[in-house]
């Protein structure tokens, strides 16, 4: 058995065939059994399998693209559950982007931020205020709501405004470290929510606890984006951008300086890394991801109120990062997917199933014990379990591997060239 596995482990062709069969079977079963959540989940987990194959990155991205852009929407599109699947997928995308943002702050720069959802709220409110009649309450000029076409600009604006808030928060907050930082950011998260909750007088900016209704849907070439199946593609594009951004930063001078600050502040400073600026940059970039997705979220829900941005949301995102693996991009993507799907699909399906069972009289479960109500319990349990038994997360962060042979060769070449120059000089 071990032998077969060994053989399989390094055989690309076998990987390819297996993956193809897997994707084929799961997408076919989703196509045939539209209501099967299992088939949907299995199709999604083909991406996880893909991650562990030995293909080049380009192939992996291509296959993932085909699955996400064509296969998933197509196979799911033939039944009543289509929109609910797309809704789940869209939310998964939104949470992944936020978790990636928080991962920069917590995972890479090592700054524990417990109020991260505030930036999401900032993005959401930025769009919904101007894309509804809300802005006419306090703006002396202009006609509101703005048209749906402005949505695309607002993604950038939401990104920038959230980044600005990240910096504004960072300037006072970064004076404190560790536990104190966590508490201060927690307070900040709550303050933002309460401000949005109370900013309906003297000037009505956010419409307070009532929330902002009828946010204009995005519009492109005369088509309104109304359904989750349409938002799915917007989220996919933004998600792709965020993943590329994180990847670029991770292995650059900036990513290294974040990690250096996390590992040892004094040494990092002594190596020429400006502490405050580096931390602010982490806050700003992390926040900007959240802000972009906030805009999308507001447009998708068409309604925004402060209850969407509670402390629990911040914790949920943090749990995603911890579960996936702090500082690990693939890990965080997996963590966010698992948590969101667990939350939206598995728990609610389980509740439905138990309800059916109790309706048919097989068992009876009190309402208070239904799985959907146990979200916090399960989050807590996951957090404790991981902290104790796998603190590095599902997919631990890996350092980039440098090509030793290549560097060795180049180094030898450089040394021999130097010697030649020296000899000529003599």
């Amino acid at each position: 058995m071990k032998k077969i596995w060994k053989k399989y482990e390094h055989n690309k062709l076998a990987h390819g065939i297996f993956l193809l069969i897997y994707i084929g079977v799961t997408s076919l079963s989703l196509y045939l059994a539209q209501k099967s959540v299992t088939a949907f989940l299995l199709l999604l987990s083909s991406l996880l399998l893909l991650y562990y194959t030995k293909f080049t990155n380009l192939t992996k991205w291509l296959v993932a693209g085909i699955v996400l852009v064509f296969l998933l929407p197509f196979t799911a599109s033939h039944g009543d559950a289509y929109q609910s699947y797309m809704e789940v997928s869209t939310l998964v995308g939104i949470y992944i982007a936020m978790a990636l943002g928080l991962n920069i702050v917590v995972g890479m720069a090592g700054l524990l931020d417990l109020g991260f959802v505030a930036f999401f709220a900032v993005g959401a409110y930025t769009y919904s205020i101007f894309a509804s009649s809300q802005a006419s309450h306090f703006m002396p000029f202009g006609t509101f709501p703005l048209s749906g076409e402005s949505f695309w600009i607002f993604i950038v604006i939401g990104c920038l405004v959230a980044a600005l808030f990240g910096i504004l928060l960072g300037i006072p907050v970064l004076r404190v470290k560790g536990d104190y930082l966590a508490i201060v950011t927690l307070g900040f998260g709550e303050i933002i929510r309460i401000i949005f909750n109370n900013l309906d007088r003297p000037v009505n900016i956010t419409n307070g606890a009532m929330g902002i209704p009828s946010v204009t849907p995005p519009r492109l070439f005369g088509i309104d984006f109304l359904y989750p199946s349409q938002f799915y593609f917007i989220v996919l594009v933004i998600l792709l951008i965020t993943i590329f951004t994180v990847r670029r930063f991770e292995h650059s001078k900036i990513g290294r300086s974040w990690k250096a600050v996390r590992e040892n502040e004094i040494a990092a400073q002594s190596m020429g890394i400006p502490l405050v600026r580096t931390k602010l940059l982490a806050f700003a970039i992390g926040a900007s991801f959240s802000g972009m997705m906030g805009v999308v979220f507001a447009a998708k829900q068409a309604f925004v109120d402060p209850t969407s941005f509670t402390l629990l949301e911040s914790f949920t995102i943090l749990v995603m990062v911890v579960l996936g693996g702090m500082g690990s991009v693939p890990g965080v993507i997996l963590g966010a997917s698992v948590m969101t799907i667990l939350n939206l699909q598995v728990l609610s399906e389980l509740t439905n199933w138990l309800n059916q069972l109790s309706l048919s009289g097989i068992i009876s479960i009190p309402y208070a014990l239904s799985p959907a109500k146990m979200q916090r319990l399960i989050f807590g349990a996951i957090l404790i379990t991981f902290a104790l038994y796998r603190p590095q997360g599902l997919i631990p962060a890996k350092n980039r591997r440098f090509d030793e042979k290549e560097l060795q060769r180049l180094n030898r070449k450089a040394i021999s060239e130097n010697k030649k120059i020296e000899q000529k000089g003599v």
Partner: protein
Amino acid sequence: MPILEVQNLTKKFGGLTATQEVSMTVEKSSITAVIGPNGAGKTTFFNMITGIYQPTSGIILLENEKINGLKPHDVSKAGISRTFQNIRLFNQMSVLENVLVGMHTHLKAGLLGILFNLPVIRKEEKEAEMHAYHLLDYVGLADLLNEKATNLSYGAQRRLEIARALAANPKVLLLDEPAAGMNPKETKDLTELIHRMRQEFNLTVILIEHDMKLVMEISEHIVVLDHGVKIAEGKPEDIRNNPKVIEAYLGSGAVQAG
């Protein structure tokens, strides 16, 4: 020509005076040792030069430019690099990455350049990797480049700190007890390494060290601190026979007995 000049440097922590009116000059391309019993204020002295502590009073000049009041990262940019007494590596990062962090100030990559992965940036990164590898090779850690820093042996960690400090391409290198915890063979290699570094990089080295054999062998100038005060200064042979120094190390009885 002096490269580093310290005038009347004083640091007070509340009621405690860590260093009092310490002055010294360091010649370019020299090796200077700062010695003294535990608690003499040597590391405080280093921390003030590198900007981690702000001196209570006094002036620090690097090539006639005042550098006290600068933040640590600006001091690093000005050309002073250091290692730490209690090793401070970036433990979870790889050995090569540790050295790359040392090159931070010399990399020009900006936010947008990184985002769009411009060819200039890629070239710079590649060259940085090569240089970092070269430095690792120089201190003898090249074959451990992908290892996590925390997994290295004690002596190797000390050498990695030196490579990282060298990566900043400093004018002055401060070594805080580089030989602490090393066996005689490692200490010998270190001595040789310091000599080589000075020659090849045209470096000025200041070191704090308790290993007297190393200090006497390597340094051209020695400054002795005791209770925050400079009690002696001079060539190794003068320091060896200086009664004040012997007293500071061995107690007042030692001089009379000797």
